């Protein structure tokens, strides 16, 4: 139930938004205070999905070990390079009856690095990333690990729905579910712009097609538009295949402001630790985080200025692009927060890739896939790759870092069913920048990251 005494505050807040919408003139970004942050290690669980054999602790252990191993192919990265750990998780207390995750991660290391848990619903991962980045920019640390994890499938779908609904406004939105909140956004978008059922389905069809080439995706299966449109109703107009799944999974990155990292010499395990640190790895060619933005909006939909866009996305994107010194026109690949099909349409409009009201048509016309104007969610997105909530924001950045880093070596094949590779000359396409967009709740928290090869 809505608190009546909040009305006055809301009135004032609306007034402030009206006068300062997207005005960042008072928030100059001091690039001199920003250090060059490189993504020197990445890890995404071997598989997102219903991982019955893996507990929360196992997922965390695999992520820590996996990201450390990823730094160098030939040598072991020295774990003591990790000066602090930032862990993202939404609801392990409710899903797994396990809290105090920061200690759970820190104890994996022999040197017990300082660890902090960050929670911001589905944006927990990206919030942990920017918390880590702020710590790096402050100079307190030079190399940190950011880990996102969620173990969701030990509860049935109704129980999971209840846990996830705790990210909405409990007092104001009693009776709601997350599909219902996004369904209201879909209704508003359809009403204002004429967005169609077919356009919503096109998002799901495209992202499932992308996931075919992602061996880690929760669902690697092609769906037709008709199958999406006839799947069971969850909250009108959103159907089952409009919704991202409940997934288990973990992801991690190692961020560093250093130019080189220390490696262990495995052939000299028997000598003192100080003498083992005789090899280094250069971070020179590792992808960089060149911009990030973070913005908030009201927790409840009723207090939003608009229901046909997420203001926090616009603000976070504007900040990130200003920080990076590029525009949306420079970005040709992005992982956006498609927790529901309408969410991707809102995202690609609010990020500036397409004009308001045209995101659905652009998707249906093939402009958001390989060979189009921009590749949206090459991993399959939350919709098909999966959505282990706390892991998602970190996974987006880890995936894009791997995408940028590996493009020269392996090229990128269009998923089966899309336009032929030869026709598009995709192997010649180079991606310099990539964008990650992570949303908490129904748009109350948004973080945008921009990466450069």
């Amino acid at each position, binding site marked *: *139930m*809505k*608190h*009546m005494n909040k*009305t006055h505050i*809301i009135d004032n807040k609306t007034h402030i938004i009206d006068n300062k919408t997207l005005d960042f003139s008072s928030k100059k970004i001091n690039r001199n205070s920003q250090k060059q942050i490189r993504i020197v290690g990445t890890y995404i669980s071997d598989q997102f999905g219903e991982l019955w054999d893996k507990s929360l602790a196992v997922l965390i252990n695999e992520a820590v070990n996996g990201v450390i191993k990823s730094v160098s192919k030939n040598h072991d990265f020295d774990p003591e390079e990790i000066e602090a750990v930032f862990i993202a998780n939404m609801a392990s207390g409710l899903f797994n009856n396990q809290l105090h995750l920061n200690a759970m991660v820190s104890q994996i290391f022999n040197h017990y690095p300082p660890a902090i848990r960050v929670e911001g619903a589905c944006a927990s991962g990206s919030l942990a990333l920017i918390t880590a980045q702020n710590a790096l920019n402050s100079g307190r640390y030079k190399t940190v690990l950011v880990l996102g994890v969620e173990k969701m499938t030990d509860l049935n*779908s*109704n*129980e999971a*729905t*209840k846990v996830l*609904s705790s990210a909405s406004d409990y*007092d*104001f*939105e*009693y*009776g*709601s*579910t997350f*599909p*219902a909140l996004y*369904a*209201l956004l879909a*209704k*508003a978008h359809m*009403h204002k712009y004429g967005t169609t059922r077919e356009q919503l389905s096109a998002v799901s069809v495209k992202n499932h097609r992308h996931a075919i080439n992602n061996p880690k995706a929760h669902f690697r299966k092609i769906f037709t538009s008709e199958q999406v449109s006839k799947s*069971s*109703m*969850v*909250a*009108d*107009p*959103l159907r089952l295949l409009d919704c991202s799944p409940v997934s288990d999974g973990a992801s991690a990155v190692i961020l560093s402001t250093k130019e080189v990292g220390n490696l262990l010499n495995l052939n000299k395990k028997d000598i003192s630790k100080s003498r083992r640190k005789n090899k280094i790895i250069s971070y020179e060619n590792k992808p960089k985080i060149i911009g990030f933005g973070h913005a908030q909006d009201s927790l*409840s*939909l*009723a*207090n939003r200025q608009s*229901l046909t866009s997420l203001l926090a996305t616009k603000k976070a994107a504007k900040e990130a692009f200003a920080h990076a010194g590029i525009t949306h026109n420079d970005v040709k690949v992005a992982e956006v927060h498609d927790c529901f099909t309408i969410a991707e349409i809102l995202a690609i409009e609010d990020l500036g890739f397409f004009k308001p009201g045209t995101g659905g048509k652009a998707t249906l016309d093939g402009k958001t896939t390989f060979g189009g104007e921009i590749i949206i969610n090459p991993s399959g997105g939350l919709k098909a790759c999966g959505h282990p909530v706390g892991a998602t924001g970190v996974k987006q950045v880890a995936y894009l870092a791997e995408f940028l880093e590996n493009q020269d070596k392996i090229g990128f094949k269009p998923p089966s069913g899309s336009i032929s590779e030869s026709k598009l000359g995709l192997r010649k396409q180079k991606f310099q920048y990539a964008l990650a967009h992570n949303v908490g709740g129904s748009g109350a928290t948004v973080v945008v990251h921009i990466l450069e090869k």
Partner: protein
Amino acid sequence: MQFNPADYWRQNKNWNNFVGKTGKIVFVTKIEVTSPELQEYLPYCFAIVEMDSERYEFMSEKGADLKKGDKVEFVLRKTAENDRASLINYGIKLVKID
């Protein structure tokens, strides 16, 4: 459902701001999948509703068929089905006015 009497009492204080008043549906969805304590009410509507130029969000009674623009009344109804030993939860719901 675990129920917090103190939280329930705090909510009760706001009921008189709504009960008996009317509003207009801004946008509405019909929910077919929900959390365990609300299963009994499926399907129900969840709507953004406008009253006195302010917007609120409420659920409807079971089986309601609300549409954008409908006029609704705020009523006091049970909001969760508990076991017989528990307190009965009440809260504000929406009912269509013909």
